[in-house]
Every structure is written in C-alpha cells, then in structure tokens.
C-alpha cells in the first residue's frame, strides 16, 4: 500500500479503537445506578433528622432481570420510587428509615443476623410492634435484611404472611407488605458505606448470594455520607 493509504488506514483503525474503548468505559465501567439524594437542604452535624423510605420487592419488572428481587428507594423530592440502592445522607444526622417489605420469606443462613443492631435503642418496629430480633426459622417471618456493616447496623425485614399473594409489577404500590421502621445516626465524618442484604434471596445462585445480591441497584448498595 502506498504511504497515504497506510496513514489513513492507521488513523481509521486508531479512531475505531479509541471509540470502542470509550464506549466500553462509558457504558459499562462508569455506569452506576442513580443516587437518591436525601441530603439536600439539611446541614450535616447539626442534629437534624431525615426520613428515608425504601421498599423491597419480590421482582423488578423495570430492569433486564425481571425475576431478580430488588430494593427501591423513594425520591424525597418527587415521591416516586427509583430503581436504585444508592443514596446520599448528611453526616451527623438522625435517619428515620421506613422499609416496606413486599417480598416473602427465605430462611437466613446465619441467624445471628436475625438480631437488630446499630439502631437507636437497639430496636426496630415490625408493623408497629417493637422487636429486638425476628426469628427467620421459626416461621415465615424474614424476607431480607438491611445491613450497613460499617456502622454495625443490621435490621431484619419482616414479611407479609406465608399465604399472602405477593405483589406483581414493581415498584409495588399496593399489596400485602410488612413495615419496618427504625432510626440510626449517620457517622460524623464523610465516607461511603456499603450496605447489603444478608438473607440468601438470590434465587438460582449458589448459597443464594449471587445475582441480585452482588449487583448494585438490586440487593446491595452504598450509603454515601456527605458533610
């Protein structure tokens, strides 16, 4: 090939490679589910309080994995359910968390995590009743947990009754559900704290911990503390 032809071929090949790499990076590496912002308008470390609302569903019909269980977070500004597990809170603030449990029960692997830890008072409200632990093996009681290991927070999520018909399309807006409420204080310094579910609800994966349990936006996420 002549010199100009070689130069042009080289340039085209180079641009194609750069474009391909950029596509990969932008679409697959830098992609994250959206972060719901609960810190807007609240001054960190000033004794404030925020209310965070989440729900967990037996499926999520809004993603490419419709039969994966999933959490949803309510956007405080719009009141709509966002399919994500990332949220932002101000530092040094009391968080009153409400989690609606639409999903049914699954036996937990380590019943140590039936115990409520890290909340204010060491308790949580299960459908209004104060509990310090919920036994996942003695009945169809626990569907998931909400655990932030970095602040030693662990709250099991109660379930609707064993015979209830679980809600269909998600995010669920009606149907039988359990309501868990609890409060905790966010740390005083900024940081990112991951949270996860401890119940093996990843159906079809070994030990129940694959799939949605290890995919951001479904059963595990980040709590970003900003100051």
């Amino acid at each position, binding site marked *: 090939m002549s010199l100009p032809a070689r130069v042009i071929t080289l340039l085209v090949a180079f641009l194609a490679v750069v474009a391909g790499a950029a596509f990969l990076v932008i679409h697959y590496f830098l992609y994250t589910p959206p972060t719901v912002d609960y810190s807007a308008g609240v001054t960190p470390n000033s004794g404030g309080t925020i209310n965070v609302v989440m729900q967990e569903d037996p499926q999520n019909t809004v993603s490419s994995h419709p039969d994966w269980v999933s959490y949803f977070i309510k956007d405080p500004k719009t009141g709509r359910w966002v399919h994500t597990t990332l949220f932002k809170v101000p530092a040094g603030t009391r968080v009153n968390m409400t989690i609606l449990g639409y999903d049914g029960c699954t*036996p937990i692997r380590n019943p140590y995590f039936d115990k409520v830890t890290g909340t204010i008072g060491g308790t949580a409200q299960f459908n209004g009743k104060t509990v310090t632990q919920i036994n996942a093996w003695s009945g169809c009681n626990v569907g998931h947990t909400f655990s932030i*290991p970095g602040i030693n927070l662990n709250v099991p999520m109660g379930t609707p009754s064993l015979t209830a018909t679980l809600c269909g399309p998600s995010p669920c807006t009606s149907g039988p559900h359990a309501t868990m409420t609890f409060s905790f204080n966010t740390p005083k310094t900024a940081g990112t704290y991951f949270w996860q579910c401890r119940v093996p609800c990843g159906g079809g994966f070994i030990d129940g911990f694959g799939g949605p349990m290890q995919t951001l936006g479904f059963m595990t996420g980040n709590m970003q503390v900003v100051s």
Partner: protein
Amino acid sequence: MAASAAPSVRSADSGGRNHGLWIFLIWLPIALAADLLIYFVWGPHLPPGTMSNTAQSQQFDIKVMAVMAAPVMAGVLVYFGYALVVWRQRDGDDSDGPAIHGHAGIQAAWITVTSVIVLSLAVFGTYELAWKGMDGAGAGQGPSPIWKPAGGTPLQVQVIGQQWRFTYRYPQFGGFETTDLVLPVGQAVQFNVTSLDVIHDFWAYQLGVKADANPGVNNVAYTTPTHTGVVTVRCDELCGLWHGAMFNYGKVVTMAQFQAWANKTETQLASITAILPPYSTVYDPTVVPQMSKAMQKGGLTGGNGYYYPPNDPVQP
C-alpha cells in the same frame, strides 16, 4: 559444550587487574553494611510486628531471610555493575571477547553454594514452622493440626466467614456469636476458621494469623498474643463484590477485661444465641433442622437460595 580449558578466572589478565578480587572487595562492605542495617536497624520494625508469638517468629523469619538475601542480591548486582563499567566495548573496537565456554570449578561452586543456601533456608523455615512453641507460624493447618501450643486447651474462637462479614463464636462462653473480636493477652488462642458460603480468608495482621475459610471445612490456626492493642482483620481471598470492604478491627485486652467482656456479652446476647444452630466446627446452612413445619411444607428447607431445588436428592 564441554568446559574448555579456560584461563584461570582469578589470575590477573594482561590488563594487570585481578577482577575477581576487585569484585569481592567491592561486594564485601556493601553486603556487611546491608546485613547489619537489616538485622539491627530495620529488624525490630519488620512486619508483622511483635504482638503475638507467631508474629514475632514470622518477624524473625523474615529478618533472617533478608539477611541471607541481601548479600546474594548485592553480589549479583555488584558483579553486573562492575561488568558493565569495566567490560564495555570501547569505541572503534569491533573484536570478540575470549572464547570461554564454561568452567567446571565455577559451575560446581555455584551449584554447591546455591544449594546450601536454599536447603538451609528450607530447614530454617521448617524449624520456624514446626518447632515447639512456634504453633505452626499462625498459618491455617486444616482440620487436623499437628503443631499445637503446649499446655492445656487454648481459648476457642470460631471465625465464621460469610459474604461479606466475619463473625466470631466463643463456644466456651455458651457459644455466643458476635461481630467483635476480643482476645486476652498471654492466652493461647485456637481459631477455628470456616465459611458459610464461598472461600474467604481470615487475616489478623498484627497477630500473624492467616487461615482460609472454606465451606464445610474447619481450618485451625493458633497464636498467643503477647501485647495488648488493636488487631486489623481483613478478608484475604476474593469473595465477591464487597471483598474489599470486608474488614473489621479487633482488640487484645487483659485477661480480666476479656473475662468481663465475655460474660457480659454472653448475657446480652442470650436471646439470639438461643436461636443459633448449636456450635459446631462446620456448618451446612442448606440443611436446617430447626425450620418450622409450615416453612418446610412450603418447600423451604434451608438457606440455599434455590440453586439445587429441594427435590434434588442429596448426594452422599
């Protein structure tokens, strides 16, 4: 190539210089200085520190190996440095070097010296691992350990690895389970490391303990803490998404503080200990005998996540 009759490599060549002697004289002070620095200056600060007997033995081990490695490295580097300076091809010189194919004496000496160094390191390592009082150097020894601390039953601490947190059970205190690792100083500890799902690794850095957590297997490691302080525990085997965040801090306290903590925690956690499976060195969370009848009738027999459905026969 058979080693042809080469000129004696230690005698002076026509340039009048005894290269071997020069190299030796440059190497000797460097090696001595390096060894002294390593042993006396750097030695007390070598990882992993001195907080337990296993950590101390590892520190000594690393010190000895560094002392042996430094002269070897210095020797090779000094030789190459000398060669690159003295034997570079001068401008305008296009000739070849002397046709030395080999030298039986040098070859034999090299093989002998390297074999001696390496074998003595192997013997030393075995001593550090297996001699009385070394407790297996803090490494996980599997379900049937052979290098155990002398004198009485060690404090039993079960380390349960699960995605993505370590929990610790103390069978001698009612089998309570906690996420805090608290150990008494001066007391031999037996870590029984197991996992509930995938392979993790319990690495207590300052204690010099590392043991893989395999599902269904009890991996035993021993140590005896000798100083109080903070222990960093990290998971050292990639175990999924949050492996990088799977760490916690433990502490070594006095025996009195430990006893107080253990008794208090045992009482505080009694209600949750009651619903835990009985203490065992290994667990199979896919088979839960305590499961309520209602759940079993609904097809839920254990925490197995429906990978192998309940109607699959259990293999022997």
